[in-house]
């Protein structure tokens, strides 16, 4: 489901004017970047781990259909019911059907970006089912009726004061406090009751192992374990690319994930789920469901170049290092996935009609490419999407939606001038003589001169000076 009225330019302008937001993000991103650097201080180890991570993801992608079938086979044998959904509407319907069958009124959720793609909470609410986010960051944004602004730290845009006010306002009988330990304790008490009473637990999946039919989840808080162990029914939702071939593939992926995402060698809990409660066992869900969601991924997969988007392990390091994200924050993107991965994934999922500007919200600085733990060539894919946006014969959803006759003509003219030495010489001669007279109010110059002086054309070009100096031409 695409967001209506998405206007990144407007949203980013608003964000830039918010000093609190800018300060929050700057401080947060700086901390995340420096801590990650400590985790990967040994360049040899980093390159070896990254190569291993990339190879694991590529191998899984190379056998994706077979691995999904094997995953389904093994999960089913283990007692996990597997469902498939082409679109988010179907996925929501599947989740609802399971919940209605068990007469669920209350669900607790661990953090899952796929469920954000599905807008699951809003959907369930319409059906009269209360769905409480149990991850503290997600709980905070849910209380404030916001979307998460980062895929790992959903409430990163808020500072302690803001959260203190929020808790006081939204939690029954809560005292005002800015003490982080007290705020945390408050959330612990509120959510503990929910875990106890929930009919269904919903989670994502960090990695699904085809070899054994195992779902792997990482977390620090314990809400993931609560949500997948206490309620009688557990529903796990995953994007179809999240499968790995063997159990042995899991340690490198999780190591890269936790060290890139939160700069930890490992999270507090690594939870590997292979079956529902077996006879004789005293806890655990009686039913586990795995919903495998497509939502445009199989189409992305078909493209030789763009399929590398699917290597992503959702660590969020790219957005931590993105100078654009740092300045506008996650909400400006108005998408479940912001930052560099969002800028290549969301246009492919939702189309270049509504999302045609996303690939341009980037200076191609390559900071993300430098730190992506599975080697996604993000800048290349960003550029490819720019081409898709203006060429109707492209293959991405709504290719050519941003095509403009004027723009196309400008570039054709540019190519004609720059590909011909004579034409180029004439053009540069003209620019050198009259270019500086161009008024600052001209389109493009206007944007430039909002904070800079006009660029000055030198009177003579390098061609002129080199010729004069007698520098040989061949």
């Amino acid at each position, binding site marked *: 489901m695409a967001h209506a009225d998405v206007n990144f330019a407007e949203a980013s302008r608003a964000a830039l004017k918010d000093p609190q937001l800018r300060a929050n993000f700057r401080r947060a991103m700086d901390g995340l970047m420096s801590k990650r650097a400590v985790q990967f201080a040994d360049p040899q180890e980093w390159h070896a781990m990254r190569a291993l991570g990339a190879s694991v993801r590529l191998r899984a992608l190379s056998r994706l259909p077979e691995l999904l079938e094997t995953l389904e086979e093994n999960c089913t044998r283990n007692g996990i019911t597997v469902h498939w959904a082409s679109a988010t509407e179907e996925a929501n319907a599947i989740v609802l059907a399971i919940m209605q069958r068990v007469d669920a009124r209350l669900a607790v959720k661990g953090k899952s970006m796929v469920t954000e793609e599905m807008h699951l909470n809003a959907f369930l609410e319409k059906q009269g089912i209360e769905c409480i986010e149990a991850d503290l960051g997600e709980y905070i944004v849910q209380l404030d009726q916001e979307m998460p602004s980062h895929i790992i730290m959903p409430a990163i845009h808020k500072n302690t004061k803001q959260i203190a006010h929020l808790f006081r306002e939204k939690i029954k009988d809560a005292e005002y406090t800015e003490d982080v330990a007290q705020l945390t304790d408050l959330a612990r008490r509120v*959510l503990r009751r929910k875990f106890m009473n929930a009919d269904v637990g919903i989670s994502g999946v960090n990695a699904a192992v085809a070899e054994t039919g195992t779902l792997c989840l990482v977390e620090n808080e314990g809400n993931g374990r609560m949500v997948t162990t206490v309620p009688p029914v557990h529903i796990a939702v995953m994007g179809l690319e999240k499968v790995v071939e063997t159990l042995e593939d899991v340690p490198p992926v999780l190591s890269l994930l936790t060290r890139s995402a939160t700069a930890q060698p490992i999270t507090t*809990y690594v939870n590997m789920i292979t079956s529902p409660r077996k006879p004789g066992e005293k806890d655990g869900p009686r039913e586990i469901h795995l919903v495998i969601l497509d939502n445009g991924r199989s189409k992305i997969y078909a493209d030789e170049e763009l399929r590398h988007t699917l290597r992503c392990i959702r660590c969020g390091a790219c957005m931590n290092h993105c100078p654009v994200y740092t300045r506008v924050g996650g909400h400006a993107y108005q998408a479940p996935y912001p930052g560099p991965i969002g800028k290549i994934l969301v246009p492919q999922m939702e189309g270049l009609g509504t999302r045609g500007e996303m690939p341009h919200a980037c200076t191609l600085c390559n900071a993300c490419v430098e730190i992506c733990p599975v080697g996604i060539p993000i800048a290349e894919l960003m550029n490819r999407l720019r081409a898709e946006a203006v060429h109707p014969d492209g293959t991405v959803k709504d290719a050519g939606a941003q095509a403009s006759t004027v723009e196309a003509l400008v570039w054709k003219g540019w190519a004609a001038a720059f590909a011909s030495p004579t034409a180029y010489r004439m053009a540069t001669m003209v620019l050198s003589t009259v270019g500086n007279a161009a008024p600052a109010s001209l389109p493009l110059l206007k944007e430039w001169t909002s904070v800079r002086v006009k660029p000055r054309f030198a009177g003579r070009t390098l061609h002129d000076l080199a010729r004069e100096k007698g520098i040989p031409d061949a």
Partner: protein
Amino acid sequence: MPDARSTILATLRAGRDAHPVETVPSDFTVLKDKRWEPAERLERVKRLMEAVHTEFIDATEQDWPAVVRAFLTEAGARTLLYAPATGAGARLHAEWGDDGPELVRYDRSVDDFKEEMFTGIDAGITMTLGAIADTGSLVLWPGAEEPRLLSLVPHIHVALLKADALYDTFWQVMTKNRWADGMPTNALLISGPSKTADIEQTLAYGVHGPKRLVVVVIH
């Protein structure tokens, strides 16, 4: 109308067969090379886990039940949930005595005493399969005998670790013990008490999981 499963698999197959995905061989040397001397392993486990507020106490095969009782008494725990069906559980039952926290048996379905577990239990005790030096993590394989909520719901989790059950890496423990041959319902790595940094990146301990993780190293 074809179902989602057929459509998805057909689309994936067509996409892959038209353009196979280029792979590179996976070289696990970087993980295999992460090794520590046996003597170093425990020190490293302690250092990494203490850095995230894990508590360590030492004991012997003979005295660990008494050590645990003394610790929990001092901590003010009124109840200790345990798994009577395990070897450790049997020893606790036999040696606990009348002082100290009340032993509560986890010998029936959680559904029969959920409210009590969530509100009336201060501590839970489990065994472990060992610990991992690379990341400072305990390895747990809960099961029918030792239910998994023992290490999650009570506010204090006491974990028994044999001093020589130490591994270098997560990769090593799973390959050496051939986990792929048969995974339990739930396998767990636990690396400290529960925590979060969601409030302005300030670390806070004891979110939803246990507030305290106490590792009893049995020498």
